[in-house]
């Protein structure tokens, strides 16, 4: 009998492998592949004799991760600022990172793009790029830290998210804000982080229009959170009291992901 440890490792390794392969296939091929790997998975489960302990382990780890969300929420200080750096320290070229390769980057048409707003807000009208550009702007050079461990200093500019949230009359007592992106990515953040003075609806990188690689036309930039919490190509956002999860978060990355 395999140890629950080994089982756990293989199950997660399989899941990761499946994701990695799926990433390299086009949409119909991906669906096919996922379907086959899913049935392979169920077959393995039929033969496995300690799936229950595997599940118990998974449950325990997920439970502790939820506990770590609460701990991070508690120690998050809304007034503590992430360090800023001189522009000379900006990393060139700045690394590209996403759940797909750089040749898969979505081209969003900025002239027709509109940010959809919904949920617990007073004003649900959509916003064009020009309208966002007309709001007060700020820019900051901060360190982007990836969950993988590497970091790179970059400069993002745009609308202070707090200004925008006040403009649309968002319920500031709500717990979460969810984001959906043009590349099918999705994530969500806590309201205190959304209101943090360094949280930006970024329209520029290094003082130039945000390039497609870094999330044109708009990304949410938070130097108080890990990279995967910073959505690119944002198409819509909603204010809610139900945790919307996220692309990586639903697979096991810690939800709060704070720095």
């Amino acid at each position, binding site marked *: 009998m395999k140890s629950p440890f080994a089982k756990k490792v293989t199950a997660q390794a399989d899941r990761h492998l499946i994701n990695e392969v799926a990433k390299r296939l086009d949409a119909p091929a991906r669906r096919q592949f996922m379907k086959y790997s899913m049935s392979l998975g169920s077959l393995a489960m039929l033969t496995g004799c300690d799936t229950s302990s595997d599940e118990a382990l998974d449950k325990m780890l997920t439970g502790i991760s939820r506990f770590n969300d609460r701990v991070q929420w508690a120690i998050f200080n809304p007034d503590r600022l992430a360090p800023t750096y001189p522009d000379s320290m900006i990393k060139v070229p700045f690394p590209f990172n996403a759940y797909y390769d750089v040749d898969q980057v979505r081209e969003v048409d900025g002239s027709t793009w509109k940010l959809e707003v919904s949920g617990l807000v007073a004003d649900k009208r959509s916003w064009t790029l020009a309208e966002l550009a007309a709001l007060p702007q700020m820019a900051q050079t901060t360190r982007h830290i990836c969950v993988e461990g590497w970091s790179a200093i970059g400069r993002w500019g745009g609308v202070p998210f707090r200004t925008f949230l006040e403009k649309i009359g968002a319920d500031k007592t709500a717990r979460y804000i969810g984001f959906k992106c043009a590349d099918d990515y999705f994530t969500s953040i806590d309201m205190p982080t959304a209101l943090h003075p360094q949280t930006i609806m970024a329209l520029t990188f290094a003082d130039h229009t945000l390039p497609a690689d870094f999330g044109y036309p708009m990304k949410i930039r938070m130097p108080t959170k890990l990279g995967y919490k910073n959505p690119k190509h944002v198409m819509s956002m909603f204010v809610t009291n139900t945790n919307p999860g996220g692309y990586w978060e639903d697979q096991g*990355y810690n939800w709060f992901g*704070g720095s």
Partner: protein
Amino acid sequence: MSADKTTWVKVHPAMVRICHWGNAIAIILMVMSGWQIYNASPLFPFRFPKAITLGGWLGGAIQWHFAAMWLLVANGLLYLVYNIASGRLRMKFWPIRPGEVLHDLGQALRGRLAHADPTHYNAVQKLAYVGVMLLIAGVVVSGLAIWKPVQFGVITELLGGYEFARRVHFFCMALIVFFVAVHVVMVALVPKTFIAIITGRAKAGVVEAA
């Protein structure tokens, strides 16, 4: 040597034994999951073989790492509070005299380090045990520095910034692993210490230092 093979002596209090094994489990989980996390973005031109890592993929490894950290810290604090309050820390590990360390090291390398009293650590052991306690403190503090470089920014600054703190964290890990490797070899050479750290007792006069 006043070897009386029928006399058993109390070597390790229950609290020390519980904390020792709690710590051993925590360190193994932290190190193996840490290697997997390292592999996602290696600092040096090598990766750890998949077979000796924990978690299966980055997300799973991080779950393990940030779960076992609570065991490591809670267990470590319990050990420290118990050992400081009872005076055991000072009694067992103090003083550490450089001259004695050199002498005992020389004896050990010649395979002549025999101790009649299993309740007493030799100078090399004292240095190694206090050293690994400091390394564990170092790995925890540098871990906080890279986990929360904004909220605990002061620690990160003191450790030379995010990127430097990452390397501090790695080197503390490497030295801890080195300690464990030597430690386990020593235990294998003197198996009776192994019984003692489980049952708490040893036959007086026949236990050599591990």
